[in-house]
């Protein structure tokens, strides 16, 4: 080229637009970074800033910064900035992207942050295939805290916590994050690059841009692992550190693409369009017009109702449903009600019980410690609660023989083989409704219409509804047969 032809010069490589002109969030030396001379973070920052510039996404970008030497990403990047807790950037980024799918969310993490304390978060964000970009800077050491061993520390590498060098026997092996994550089906792109020489840096540049571009296209989870330098902790010159990446680190952490599903990946579905606000009560099932109206005025008989009921039996006997029908009927009749179950593993097997209150007055305590009516669907349940029944109360017991030692003079008992009765009606499982029928004869004031309404709301299967209605009627008949005077 003839030098005489040169007329002028124009900038081809310079500070990225996505960097602040001056680092005003930095307390001092606002014209340069806080990184040590030769630190790889600065180089990776520039790659990222350049990708943001080239893709024209500065306004849309949210950078989630880590804990570690690169904690101050917000000093430098003129984008939306969020600083996450140690290891948690993938969780933070997940939520930001999910709620703001139009934004470009980039997580930036070091190897202590991502592969140790944040191992679970990165694994699951990758596995969910979150449409985010993660820049993972691996320099095989905890730098900010002064050079402790990381999961990525090389075998034999000295650190302040492996003073004799890392031994696999005691500290395990260098963790291959890219290979590990590439075994998952979630990610679309995972590549390990290095800062070991010009060629590696050029490839790293391409990879970083690609990982961001994947997100712009909506393709899914991309992670770029960058083998980076820490001249200070490694106690090397910047140039020797660069060579160490290429000559030593790369032996443990081979460069390359570990996962590329960008060709198969389809742009991800964004959030469903939000319904208009006026539709929300309806969508939640709480819109007034879809709810039944409770009785406006209470008849004298309803007014007099004050039930303290305990229902107990084995899981699967319909203990909770019995109580629920009763409470629902009470609500329909215009009463105050409460229903409180026993819960936990015992509701899946073993014993189950619930407390039901119906009253025309405000219900103070929903706990029924001394029931007026105990519905005991088996003997163990009877024995558990029989002594708690208040004097003058009732026990409805599922069994022909009421255990003689449970007999109390101050409590009335209806003991019948309710399971058999239900079986004869068509299904033994309707036992709970036969017993409820008997109970309703004690709680006389509750209108049949409210009971029908409650059954209609809770029993959706028409076959079962018909059976349960028969069961309730049968229960009422059995009670009247035993206690015609009540």
């Amino acid at each position, binding site marked *: 080229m003839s030098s005489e032809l040169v007329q002028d010069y*124009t900038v081809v490589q310079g500070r990225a637009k996505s*960097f602040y002109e001056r680092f005003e969030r930095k307390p001092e030396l606002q014209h340069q970074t806080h990184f040590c001379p030769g630190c790889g973070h600065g180089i990776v920052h520039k790659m990222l800033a350049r990708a943001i510039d080239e893709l024209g996404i500065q306004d849309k970008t949210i950078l989630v910064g880590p804990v570690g030497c690169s904690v101050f990403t917000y000093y430098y990047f003129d984008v939306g900035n969020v600083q996450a807790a140690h290891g948690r950037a993938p969780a933070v980024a997940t939520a930001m992207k999910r709620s703001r799918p139009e934004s470009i969310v980039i997580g930036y993490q070091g190897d202590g942050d991502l592969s140790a304390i944040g191992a679970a978060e990165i694994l699951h964000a990758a596995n969910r295939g979150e449409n985010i970009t993660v820049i993972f800077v691996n320099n095989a050491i905890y730098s900010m805290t002064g050079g402790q061993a990381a999961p990525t520390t090389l075998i034999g590498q000295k650190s302040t916590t492996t003073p004799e060098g890392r031994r696999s026997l005691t500290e395990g092996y260098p963790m291959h994050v890219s290979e590990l994550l590439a075994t998952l089906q979630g990610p679309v792109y995972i590549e390990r690059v290095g800062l070991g020489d010009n060629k590696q840096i050029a490839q790293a540049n391409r990879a970083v841009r690609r990982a961001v571009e994947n997100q712009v296209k909506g393709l899914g989870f991309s992670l770029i692992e960058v083998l980076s330098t820490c001249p200070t902790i490694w106690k090397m010159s910047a140039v020797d550190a660069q060579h160490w990446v290429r000559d030593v680190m790369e032996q443990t952490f081979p460069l390359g693409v570990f996962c590329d599903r960008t060709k198969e990946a389809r742009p991800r579905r964004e959030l469903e369009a939000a319904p208009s606000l006026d539709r929300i009560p309806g969508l939640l099932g709480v819109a007034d017009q879809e709810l039944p109206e409770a009785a406006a005025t209470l008849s004298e008989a309803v007014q007099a109702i004050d039930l303290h009921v305990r229902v107990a039996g084995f899981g699967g006997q319909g203990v909770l449903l019995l109580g629920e029908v009763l409470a629902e009927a009470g609500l329909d009749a215009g009463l105050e009600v409460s229903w409180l179950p026993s819960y936990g593993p015992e509701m899946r097997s073993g014993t189950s019980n619930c407390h039901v209150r119906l009253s025309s007055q405000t219900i103070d305590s929903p706990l029924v410690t001394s029931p007026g009516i105990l519905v005991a669907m088996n003997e163990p349940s009877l024995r558990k609660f029989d002594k708690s029944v208040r004097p003058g109360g009732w026990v409805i017991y599922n069994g022909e023989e009421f255990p003689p030692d449970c007999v109390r003079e101050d409590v009335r008992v209806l003991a019948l083989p309710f399971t058999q009765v239900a079986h004869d009606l068509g299904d033994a499982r309707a036992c709970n409704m036969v017993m409820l029928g008997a109970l309703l004869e004690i709680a006389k004031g509750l209108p049949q219409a409210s009971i029908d309404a409650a059954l209609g709301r809770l029993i959706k299967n028409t076959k079962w509804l018909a059976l349960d209605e028969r069961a309730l009627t049968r229960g009422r008949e059995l009670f009247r047969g035993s206690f015609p005077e009540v």
Partner: protein
Amino acid sequence: MTETPQKDRGLLRIDVDECKGCGLCIEACPPKAIDMSEHLNHYGYRTAVYAGAGCTGCGICFMACPEPGAITVLRAVMATAGVVPAMNTGIEGAAHA
């Protein structure tokens, strides 16, 4: 700022206040057109300085440098063509390595 108005294909500007003297650009520069200064800057670093000639404008030093704006790479605008040679992204320049 050091800027030497040579009629090379490329030109470097190095901000000696931002430069921390790590030497990565010197290592990276294919035509070896960057030197380390003899004297210290305001912050006590020896800094990179353009040798004054030989820059091809490849941009590799820019990407090797960890500071956002310590290095600015310029390219010649040709009087005959009136256009700037294609912008170097640093990627193609890797062929120099």
